[in-house]
């Protein structure tokens, strides 16, 4: 693939419109893109020039908002991050696994956010606020730096076989969010969060399969975060 030269790619997209379709079906499209374009550009091409009924989510288009995670060539990726030259001329796009499809590539994220809320993803500190900020050393901040990068795109959770098998499993994204606060020196609810994660739908459902770590567009060491939470539970005997 020569850089910068327009080329034709074949897109196979999983379609479903609940108002007209009984079953999901495959739509086949051609798009003209450049090797350095992103899969998102190919989807735009289809929507803007071929079939305006195609539905997918995207917002920032720069890997920040986490709206356009989808199954691209069999792996969860952000359409706005993966380049055409990385996926080749034949591209298969499907909605994320495990979440209900609203239309085409748009899934209902509510079950995912429900898991997220379950781990209390906010700072809990009942001490009276100091006159300035709540201070933290560089080392203390460093402890949970990796897990602050999560953009809640659901690529990790929906790539996890444990989540596919048991929908009530809290999933890697929620555990990453819990990790971010459990190891925050300013937080006072880590024991509570560990107790939530020690339930049968918590961290012990993780089988170290690493699909989540491979799928994370922010390169968070997701499985390591889960393992650190497991270790902390063992240490505190939760």
């Amino acid at each position, binding site marked *: 693939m020569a850089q910068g030269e327009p080329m034709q790619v074949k897109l196979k997209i999983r379609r479903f419109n609940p108002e007209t379709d009984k079953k999901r079906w495959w739509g086949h499209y051609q798009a003209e893109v450049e090797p350095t374009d992103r899969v998102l550009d190919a989807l735009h091409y289809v929507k803007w020039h071929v079939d305006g009924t195609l539905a997918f989510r995207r917002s920032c288009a720069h890997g920040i908002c986490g709206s356009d995670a989808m199954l691209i060539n069999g792996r969860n990726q952000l359409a706005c991050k993966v380049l055409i030259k990385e996926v080749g001329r034949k591209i298969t796009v499907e909605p994320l696994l495990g979440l209900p499809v609203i239309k085409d590539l748009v899934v209902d994220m509510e079950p995912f956010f429900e898991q997220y809320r379950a781990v209390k993803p906010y700072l809990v500190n009942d001490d009276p606020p100091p006159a300035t900020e709540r201070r933290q050393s560089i080392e203390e901040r460093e402890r949970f730096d990796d897990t602050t990068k999560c953009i809640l795109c659901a690529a990790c959770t929906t790539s996890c076989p444990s989540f596919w098998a048991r929908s009530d499993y809290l999933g890697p994204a929620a555990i990453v969010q819990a990790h971010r606060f459990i190891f925050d020196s300013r937080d006072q609810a880590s024991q509570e969060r560990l107790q939530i994660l020690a339930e049968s739908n918590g961290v012990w459902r993780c*089988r*170290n399969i690493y699909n989540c*770590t491979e799928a994370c567009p922010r390169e968070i060491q997701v499985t390591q975060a889960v393992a650190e939470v497991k270790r902390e539970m063992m240490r505190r005997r939760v």
Partner: protein
Amino acid sequence: MLRTRRVSYLEGLRYQGKESMLAWVLHRITGLGILFFVGTHVVAAFFLNAIGDNISKSVTLWYESTPFQIFIYFCVLYHAFNGLRLVVEDFYPPVLRYRRELLWLQWLIFLPVFGLPAFLMVLSLFSGSA
């Protein structure tokens, strides 16, 4: 109750996981293999000295055959080695940064420990001393 979508086995297996997903799939298969092995013993014991004495004998003959012995040796050994890797990972999370190397190390130890006895079993089968 969460309103999630059921993922079929086919959809799950089509997911392009890397070597650690394969390691997990193999862990499940070998686990089922062990269960199957125990099952054959239960069946053989159940029919022993009963109406189906012949069934018991043929099941025993079957699970004592060299190919089945090699299969079960593979299952037990792989399941144990992979399980130990998971234990190490859970106890020392920092090693997870080297998960690929750890997986290679597992195979590096597994292959001779499995291969050599398996080879000897095959050898004795062909020399007729099995």
